[in-house]
Every structure is written in structure tokens, then in C-alpha cells.
């Protein structure tokens, strides 16, 4: 009798544990803000949309390296030392320069350390920026469009007959 009880309890515990783990796997546990407030209200809608500045003017390393890069403060000010200097946000931006402080932008797209995602190789394969980053020229405040989960990556790799070897990304 005691043995039976013990077995049952053990089974219950195992079942609960497995159930819990399955739930953990399927729940959308990414609780990070998809469109967080940035320290300065930089608008892609205005820069990339209205003014049609090329993505690579600011994200300069996209074609040459794995990381596209955010523009350094000096690059922002190369225009904004002269343009729209009377606007309060631009004065805020100039304030960062005066204090010699970098702008602490909030990072939207981040992959785990065990994933290697090279921007330059994807651009070479003529993947549009918008495929992963969405129509940024329509966004006044940036938001994360893609889930950036492994299944999502593999989907695209399969569709485009890119390598789905483990070592392609986990190197």
C-alpha cells in the first residue's frame, strides 16, 4: 500500500515537472518591452522615411561586419550641429555631447551569445533590412517586429535554401 502511494506521488511529481517544463517552453516568456521609451525620441519615420536617408549612412558597419552598429554621437552631431538646433530634443542631444556622455539607447534586437548573426553575409545574400527590422521608415518609435527565435531563423533559411547546419549559426 505504502509502495503504491509512493509510486503515485512520484508519478505525479514527474508529470507536474514535465507539464511545467512544456508550459515554460510554449509560453511567450519574452517580457521585454517591444517598443520601449528611448532616452531621446529619435524618429526613423522622419530620418529614413521623410528624409530618405539610407540605412547604411548611420548603421555603417552593416556591409562590412557582423554588427551593423549604432551611429556614434559625433555622427549625429555632424548634421545636428547645424540642423534643427532650436528644437528641445536636439538641444538635449547636444547636452550629451557637452557632458561627453554617450546616449544610453535601449537595445531592441539582441541574440544570445551562442548565436552568430553576421549582418554583412545577410546583406550580401540580398536580404532586405525590413525583413527582420520591419518597415522602420514608418515607425516614429522603434519596435521589435520579429521574434528572433531559432524557429523563425530556420524558417527563412529553409525558404531561401540557406544552410541549416548547426555550425552555420552556432559557431
Amino acid at each position, binding site marked *: 500500500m505504502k509502495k503504491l502511494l509512493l509510486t503515485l506521488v512520484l508519478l505525479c511529481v514527474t508529470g507536474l515537472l514535465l507539464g511545467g517544463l512544456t508550459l515554460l517552453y510554449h509560453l511567450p516568456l519574452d517580457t521585454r518591452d517591444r517598443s520601449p521609451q528611448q532616452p531621446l525620441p529619435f524618429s526613423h519615420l522622419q530620418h529614413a522615411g521623410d528624409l530618405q536617408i539610407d540605412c547604411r549612412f548611420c548603421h555603417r*558597419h552593416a556591409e562590412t561586419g557582423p*554588427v551593423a552598429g549604432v551611429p556614434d554621437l559625433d555622427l549625429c552631431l555632424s548634421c545636428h550641429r547645424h540642423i534643427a538646433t532650436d528644437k528641445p530634443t536636439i538641444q538635449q542631444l547636444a547636452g550629451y555631447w557637452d557632458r561627453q*556622455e554617450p546616449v544610453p539607447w535601449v537595445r531592441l534586437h539582441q541574440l544570445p551569445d551562442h548565436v552568430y548573426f553576421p549582418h554583412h553575409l545577410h546583406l550580401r545574400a540580398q536580404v532586405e533590412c525590413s525583413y527582420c527590422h520591419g518597415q522602420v521608415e514608418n515607425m516614429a518609435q522603434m519596435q521589435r517586429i520579429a521574434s528572433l527565435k531559432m524557429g523563425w531563423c530556420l524558417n527563412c533559411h529553409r525558404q531561401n535554401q540557406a544552410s541549416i547546419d548547426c555550425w552555420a549559426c552556432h559557431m
Partner: protein
Amino acid sequence: MKRRSFLQLGGMSLATSMLAGCRKGNEKLIPFLVPPDDGITPGTANYYASACRQCPAGCGILVRVSEGRAKKVEGNPRHPVNQGKLCARGQAMLQELYHPDRISQPLIRSGPRGSGQYQPVSWEVALKQLVEDLSPYLAADSPGMVLFSPPLRGSLATLSKEFISQFPNGEQLAWEPLQPDWLAQGMFGARGNPDYDLENTQYLLSFGADFLETHLSPVRYGQAFGQMRQARPTVRGRFSYIGPRLSMTAASADRWLPAKPGSEWALALGIVRRLLQSQSYDAATVKAAGLSITTIEAQVETYTEERVAELTGVPLADVRTTIDEAVSISPALAIAGEMLAWQSNAAEALAAVELLNVLFGNLNRPGGIYYTEPTSKPATNSYPDLNRLIGRMQDEKVQLALIHASNPAYSLPPSSGFQQAFSKLPRIISFASFLDETSLQADLILPDHSNLESWGDLIPAAATRSEVIGLMQPVVKPVHDTRAFGDVLLATAKGLGGRIAKKLPEQSYLQWLEKELGERIPDLAGADKQQQMDRLLQQGGWFGPPSKPSRIDWLRLAAPPAAAQFNACRGGSV
């Protein structure tokens, strides 16, 4: 631990580790204010060649720099000393660079000495203070002052010598516990350090030389040892270690003979005796050295196996087998280490090992010892020099100390009296990067750049069979508000004015370095000096032609040390 508590703890740690895996909020994305001049591609590293000054061996390094930060240090494959390998000390260079406790700007003592209370000041104030402190010492009747440093080679040696020689009663004391320069004086009276051809030897005897840890260059000899053991298809070199401590090197030996401290030489003489008896010594070398076999025979006659066993305290069977092996296996090589050199009978002990090598016929031949002319001989001081200085400090004849890259308050034993005499000095100025035992006593600290932020030339203390000048270049922008020691000396000379400013007119240490290198490196003599310099920096230094063999001072051996002198340490009571 009880099973129950184990399960509880295990469950708890499992749960917390799973919780920690959950993603928290968005991270920050911090851009550069102004990108570095040479341009960076985020995610793609740049590699710079430089040199390692963490120990006197002077290995070449390659540093991986990502987004303007040094990330990893490895050996430079083109450097003749370390050939692409690097030891733990060199790998740890990054910890020095980014250490949270590094002194980030000049400090002036504000509390009592040794309390660690300092007032951060600007470089202008600190340099003004240094000039003020040093100016009275330019007078001819001033008290003595001393510059403590490790044995320096190359341009920093000439600069500090030039600087200190401007003070009538100034002196430089170059001493470091790891310095191997006693080897040059202690063995064969050669001018440079020896290069042991471990790779080609078949039987190695180490008399207290921990060549896999600290002796000469652990990286160079670690590789050579591997070659000796495994690189030849039919031969596995054998290795016996004679010395009291089971060091890492001793543990790698086939046989460890734990001889009493100061008695290792007895085994060397035991082998000498047997070599003479069995007529298996190298007659040509003995003749070249001008030694008389009959004299040596008479001197070593008493060193029978039994006596060697009694003197060293090693079991007779082990002594016998070692002597048998050393006499029958050729080429055999004996190397002497710090364990011998730091005893009071060092001269005799080193001469015994030296004599053994002469009988093996080991000079300048494969599997033996190569002595080459050194590219630059460091100004180095011995422990007796240090004792004399401590005496002068106690007599208040020395009033000011400048401390560069050394920590004598830690590395000297309190019985030397250094710590006490040092703490009473009226003025102590340090160039340390950290608050250590010595710099805690300092009145003024002017922090030096770290290895990876400095310009410099590094001539390896570990000898190579070709001429080498390793070059150091800054691979990152200085992390803190520090200044290179050489720059501080030049700025001080300028501040002091007069004769010393005329002697040291260079604006920066880099200028001094380029001037010095131009004199020493033939490649830099031409008109394309800048391109050549860039090339040398890119490859990590100047790797010149094979060195000339060094002159050997045979006179030292002409009269072999009398056996009676060795008796001074009978029973290991040194």
C-alpha cells in the same frame, strides 16, 4: 551533510538557476562618442603585435582588440623566444589593464605613512611636486637618492641612467627576484645569459633550476622540454632534478633527488669524479679551458658515491643510478638554477656545475649550452649591492627613493632591514600602478601606463641565438589618467631645467625610443625609416641575424675551486 538537506539545497539551486535564465528587461546600446581614428568594425577584431614585460624573459605577444578594448593576449609566432606560446603571467596582462584597483591618477599622501590615505591630484600638480622634491638633489653636496627598478634593458635603461646620472649623489639600484642575470656572471664569466639546447640533449640534470616555472623563460624551455621528451622518434630525453623542493619542474622529472639545500653541487662533483675515472670526458674542451686533469682528479677524489649520498642526504642507490646515467648517456647537460645561486656557497656550487659541463664538452654544441654576445647588457645589481644600499639608508645617507616597477618591501625579507630603513626615508616617490607594500609608503604616486598602453623596446633576458629587440606599442587608449614612466622622467627633466634639461631634450619617450632604436637597429638607418618602423611594429620587433658566440672567460676555471671550499656546507648547514 544529510540526505534531506542535500535534496533541499539541490532543489533550491535548480530552481534559482532556472529563474536566472529568464530574460529581464532590454539591455542598453552604448555608442562611441567619437570612433577611434584607425576605424573599427564592431564584431571584427584587430590584432596588434607587442611585447610582454611581466617577467624578464621578454616574450612577444599578439593582442586581440575589439571595439577599442584589448580582449585576449597570445604569443607571437614570429618571436624567437616564445614562438607563439605564452605563459599564465603573460595571459593575465589584461587583468592588469582593467584591474578595478588600478591607481587611476596621481596621488599625494594626505594621511600618515602606510595608512593608504591619498589625495588625487592633477598631473600638473604632481609633476610640480616631483620637480620640487628633486631639485635640491642637483646640488653637489646634497644627500643621496636612489632609483629602484628591475634590471632594465634597451631605451628605458639608457633614459633612466642618463636621468639619474645628472644627480651628483644619485644611484640606480636594479634588482628583481626573478632576474636571471646572475647566470651570465656566475657561469663561465660570459657576457650574456646562456641558451640551453634542451631540444637536442639526451640526459638533463637540473641543479635546482625550475625552468618550467620561473627560470630564464618558462615558455621557451617548456617548449624545448616537450621537444626533448617527444619530438625525436627513437629518443626520449631523460631528466633528473636535484634540489630540495618538489617543484613543478621536479615533479616532471624522471627522478627527483631531494638533496639538502646547498648540497646539490656534491652530486655534480660525484659525476665529475666518475667521468674522470671512466675516461669518458671531453678532452678537447678540457684542453681548451686550460684545465689540468690531475688537479681536478685530486680535488674530487673524495667525492665517492657514498660521500655524495651522505652530503646530499639522497639514498645511495639513487645517487649511483644518476651518476651511471650521466656518465653513459651523451649528450648530457647540467643546468644550475636559483636554488644554487641564492645560497651562500653559490660561487663554488655554480663552478661545480660549470666544471661538469666542461667535462661533458657542452659549450656551443648541439645538446649543450650556447653563449652569445648579448644585444644589450642590463644594469643589474646583486643582493650585496642591495645590502650596502640598505646600510646607507639606515645611516640616513640616502634621503629620497624613486620606485619604478618593483615592490622591494614585499620581495625582500624583513631580516634584510629594508622595510624599516625604507619607511624612515624622508621622501618616497612611486610610479606604481597599484597600492602595494612599497607604494603604500610613498608620499607621491605617479601611476605608470600598463603594458598594453605603453611604447617600449624589450630585449629578452632569456638568450636566443639571434639578436632580438621586441617592440611594445600601445594597443588601447590609456584606460586611466596615467603617464608612461619615461614621459614623466623627460617632463621632470624639463621642469628641473638647466643641465639636465639640456641632456634630455626629447619631448616624449616615443622620441627617445625612436632615437635609441635608430642607433641599434640597422634597418632603421635608411631614409625609409618610418615604413621600416611600421613594419617592425607590425611583426612585433626586430629579429636580427644570428648572434656572435660570446667570449668565455676560461681564467675563472683555470684554477678550479679547492675542494676545501665546498666543505663549508657539509651536511647542508649553509
